[in-house]
């Protein structure tokens, strides 16, 4: 199964939780989108599907 995580192809990431763990140790201030839609924290352990586009986002400086 291949997904795209923050713009990079990955074959080893099966859940949103794993996607978060792959890019950061932080859990607070993190949000996950799969195919553009927000994934609530309660659903982070649900399986991803082949071809999913996953974004793991956090706060950064901004006006």
């Amino acid at each position, binding site marked *: 199964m291949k997904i795209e995580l*923050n*713009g990079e192809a990955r074959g080893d990431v099966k859940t949103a939780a794993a996607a978060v763990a792959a*890019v*950061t140790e*932080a859990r*607070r*201030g*993190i*949000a*996950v*989108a799969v195919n*553009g*839609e*927000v994934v*609530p*924290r309660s659903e982070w352990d649900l399986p991803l599907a082949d071809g999913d586009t996953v*974004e*793991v*986002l*956090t*706060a*950064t*400086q*901004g*006006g």
Partner: protein
Amino acid sequence: MPDPATVTPGIASGPGIHTGLTIADKTFDSRLILGTGGAANHAQLAAAIAASGTELVTVALRRVSPGTEGSIVDVIESCGVDVLPNTAGCFTAEQAVRTARLAREAFGTNWIKLEVIGDEDTLLPDPVELLDAAETLVAEGFTVLPYTNDDPILARHLEAAGCAAVMPLAAPIGTGLGIRNPHNLALICEGANVPVICDAGIGTASDAAQAMELGCAAVLLATAVTRAADPELMAAAMRDAVTAGRAARLAGRIPKRQLAKASTTFDGMADL
């Protein structure tokens, strides 16, 4: 150089001056909202937040990048101020709505500074997409603070859509040009029943004071502080400017006249 923390505004008294800024269900003592974009580092940002007296600061939502120094949310929390996430960089209503939903998940707040821009050169709001996104987000229970053009009619539409405030620009983001159309800003203030927050384009303290004199309820600025030579001192200057501008507004300025009017009476003038 004076310590900004000890520079106390001397004019902050009189009726109404201590009335807080109420947006939706929150009331703030400070009428300055600080954007965090452009800060050189977290320590400098924390110092600027403290010196500004702000109680609300904006952040953006971006991909996690490995090796980033600490979390900006931790910096903001340690300052004891609230986070206002934005949708900076979004060009469509759909992008902005999705970003707002992600921000709500990340920060646990329904508040969103809604930005939907039309192009990269001007960063001016796209009014059609902005209103569309505002209507969707209000329906989803967000407290929407839209960054908007200095257009009184659009401001009216945004208020009617249920936005908790309207945030017209002084000038394009990051330009520091000051208030390009004070007449329009005053018209927006006169017509609005929600707080009007002057957002973007502020260059220096006198711009912030002018926004308040025109009737704005608050000022939101980032670059003017974060990219000043001394951000902490400029933050203190902005704090005092907003207070001074509001005091001047409440005090009621004198009308402008074409010809001089002596402040010293001619009565009793000696025959010399």
